[in-house]
């Protein structure tokens, strides 16, 4: 089974995670809705151009900017926490069909491990990005700069996927930083093709994010934008699962060869 097949054979997993994301985003946008609606009520804004209305709204309700910022950050944090709680189950499910109880069991029992390795990965990512930032500083082309930084970012994500997978499927130690360090090493030494594939898939995910930005800007004030954005969130999630499945596939192959 290749990585993409692993994702395609787990539609329930994808659907469940997608709905979770949508619920989080929807829930945190409710306070914004209440505030804006209260600010405008009982009046109506009918001009085709929204920017003047939005400008007045934000200037007269300065708390609104903070509220939206908080909504975005909180939704992000909550989503990250949810992910850490679930990711072991996700990896386990991508390794093969599992009953829901086992999914939950793995997710729960491994979540402290996931938290630790994610923490290590955060440090590694910060260091890697700082280094990348220093390296590209002299580059003239902003596009090459940005692409380089994104490749480094993606490598960190892929290494974290591998470390998590090693912990879930191969009983690697989460506490020891070497699990993560070895993941980085193995990606380059042992499975460079998988690294390249996973980074490529991460570019695909980034492509969906860019599309979402376009939708957010060009669809502002239309009814379709939010649905297109929700759809793109599902595609971004699918690409992320695909990236993780590449790690699962790679670790399973390694174990089979070793076995």
């Amino acid at each position, binding site marked *: 089974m290749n990585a993409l097949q692993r994702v395609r054979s787990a539609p329930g997993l994808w659907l469940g995670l997608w709905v979770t994301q949508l619920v989080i985003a929807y829930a945190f946008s409710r306070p914004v809705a209440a505030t804006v609606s209260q600010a405008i009520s009982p009046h109506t804004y009918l001009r085709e151009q929204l920017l003047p209305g939005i400008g007045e709204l934000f200037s007269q309700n300065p708390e609104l900017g903070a509220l939206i910022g908080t909504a975005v950050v909180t939704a992000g944090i909550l989503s990250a926490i949810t992910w850490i709680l679930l990711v072991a189950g996700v990896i386990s499910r991508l390794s093969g069909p599992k009953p829901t109880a086992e999914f939950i069991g793995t997710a729960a029992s491994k979540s402290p491990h996931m938290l630790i390795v994610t923490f290590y990965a955060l440090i590694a990512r910060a260091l890697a990005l700082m280094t990348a930032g220093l390296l590209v500083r002299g580059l003239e082309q902003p596009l090459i700069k940005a692409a380089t930084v994104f490749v480094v970012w993606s490598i960190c994500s892929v290494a974290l996927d591998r470390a998590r997978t090693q912990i879930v499927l191969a009983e690697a130690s989460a506490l020891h930083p070497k699990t993560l360090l070895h993941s980085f090493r193995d990606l380059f030494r042992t499975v460079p093709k998988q690294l390249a594939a996973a980074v490529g898939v991460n570019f695909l995910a980034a*492509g969906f994010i860019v599309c979402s930005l376009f939708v957010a800007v060009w669809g502002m004030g239309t009814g379709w934008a939010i649905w297109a954005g929700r759809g793109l969130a599902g595609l971004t999630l699918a690409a992320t699962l695909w990236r993780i499945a590449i790690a699962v596939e790679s670790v399973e192959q390694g174990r089979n060869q070793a076995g």
Partner: protein
Amino acid sequence: MFVGFSGVRSLDAGGVIPRAHNIFWTSALGLVAALGLIACDPPAPANTPVAEPTEALRPPDQRGSVPAKSRIADYVIDAQLDAEKRQVTGTVRITWRNRTTQTVDHLPLHLYMNAFRAEDTTWMAEGRGAHRTGRPDNWQWGYIDITSANLTELRTGVDAPSPTELQQQQPKQLEWKERDDPSLADVKLPTTVGPGQQVTIELAFVTQLPTVFARTGYHDDFFMVAQWFPKVGVLEETGWQAHVFTFHSEFYADFGNYQVFLDVPENMVVGASGIRTAEEVADGRKKLTYKAEMVHDFAWTADPDFVEYHRDYNGIRIRQLIQPEHVGDAEAHFEAQIETLKSMEKRFGPYPWSTITIVHAPDGGEEAGGMEYPTLYTTSDILNPGPAKLLGFAEQFSGRFTTVHEFGHQYFQGLLASNEFAQPWLDEGMNTTSNMLVMYDWHPDDPWVAKLGNQKLTIDDSVRMALLGASTIDAVDRQVDTYRAFNPSYGVTVYRKTAALMLTLRNLVGHEVFDKGLRAYADKYRFRHPKGSDLADTLIATIGRRVTLAEAKIRHDDPKHPESQPEVVLDVRDYLDQALQTVDAVDYKLRTLKVRRIVGRSGWHRNDAGELIGGEEPEGLDTPTAKLDDDLVETLVVIDRKGEFPVPVELEVEFEDGSTQRRMWDGKARYWAFTFPGKRGIRATIDPDQKLLLEAHTLDNTRTRKRKDDGLTQAVVDSAELAELIAIGGMGL
């Protein structure tokens, strides 16, 4: 001078795209950009040199009226630039003509550069050493020191030519003294100068240029040499007008002719007011001679890095001195310049001079940017929006609008030389008004200034939004030191509120008649020093003092008839007084839109015989209006006046049958109720055509019935939710 649009800044700050994950966004956008979606930098324009004009003024048939009697102060300046010391050493010979009925015994001199001489000058104390964007990195005080003063000639006859050669007669040494604030000094004359006399004095001076942080000074090899020589004040019938150089203050001077000899390092590319009449290179130095006629200042710039481009517009030589890294923007500035010339010549009469020079300060020297001088101005660079461009972000504020604004000053203070200290709104505010008219002319269908995707902000919206800021701290018609540096009111009030009040008036009385009034002002006060009252009087003379905006159409037998319309008269004088002299705001609110049962005829009434008849129960009191016949219902609309500035305002009501009706209200009472018998209103909007630029708060201008969404909440909430989804997905957990 250009002061940023704070309204747009506040919009930026309240944007819906999260700041976190910047690197990620940059990377993702970089990915798309790498796919070739990014537009390339525009190419440098073709450079076809246009010869230096031979006369400083355009030919008589093109220049419009240039009254000889406006010539008051001539200057002959001989100056050397020491690029190492950043000093200009020179002499100035000032010939001043007394065209008033007053007799004077001294000449007040502006020594503007002394504002930057010490921490405790009036200017520095107010600004605390910082201007628009802050303090310079390397500190260098600026000052001007007069080293000698001599009287060289005093004669009768103001129209006698001023001397260009040093007089043979023995110069007489003069006494001079700085005032408490060193930006002013007085030169004592040995004898009085009466009406019809002219006097010539010669001063030697040394000007130390500061690091550029307020219009003038140097940055590396770039020199913006402005406010650099002693300038005589303006004698009015009420006495001398010479003001301490204060923080927001600009300048006030008489017209005259300038001949300027500059001696600069050979590698310098020089731009200056007027035309160059001679150039000579020898011993590593360049000696240049300039001539400017009928101007009230002279500024110049020098930078070895300037790249030079030319255009010709109807015999006007447009010269652009741009930094090499920005040559791609030169064409956009030319376009803005030419569109502005087209619009302003049409609206305000011929541009009289034969040349205009556009100057770009280098990075780090931006504080020299966005400033006007006779036939020369500094603009600002066009911002590169970076990846935001891919998302559909565009704006015309940076660069283009600065060019429109600074050229606009060639009229609104260059030609209509108002006192910028006493009435800064007459130049900055009226110039901003003219800038908006230029934008209307340039983009007649769509005068946008910022775009984001399909969304646009028009120039009117930007001004209206700016008024949301600090428009109620200070009134418009105040002398410039009223606006304190720690208040944000100067830019909002002097620039935008002036434009808003002028264009609101234009929208109310009609574009044609208003434009005619403005043209009459421009024609009458060309090469003069108009005051605010001159502008108001000229506008009223053209528009009329009282303008009837709606005839009374009240049917006395049925005052609630659909045709009913109270008379609405705008008193232009009262309007201008309240707009200019108070901080009162224009603000209306649509309080009520409802359909109700019409007043019935049940109850006791007397018949012709005087007997009480009837007494029947009222019908349909509790029936929902939707179930009543049309002729038993009416629409009630109530408008509240929230602001203290009453301005005539229109109301538009849309009905269930698809028809609409408009009414006008003079806005004077605290509220006004309109009824529409037999009609079921579904929408009522105040100021449907957005004529009232003075009304900043418009979110309460419309009410609807039978509509679920308020038109804005969903858009904002969807954007917020999308931002959350992008953040969640973008983390790539």
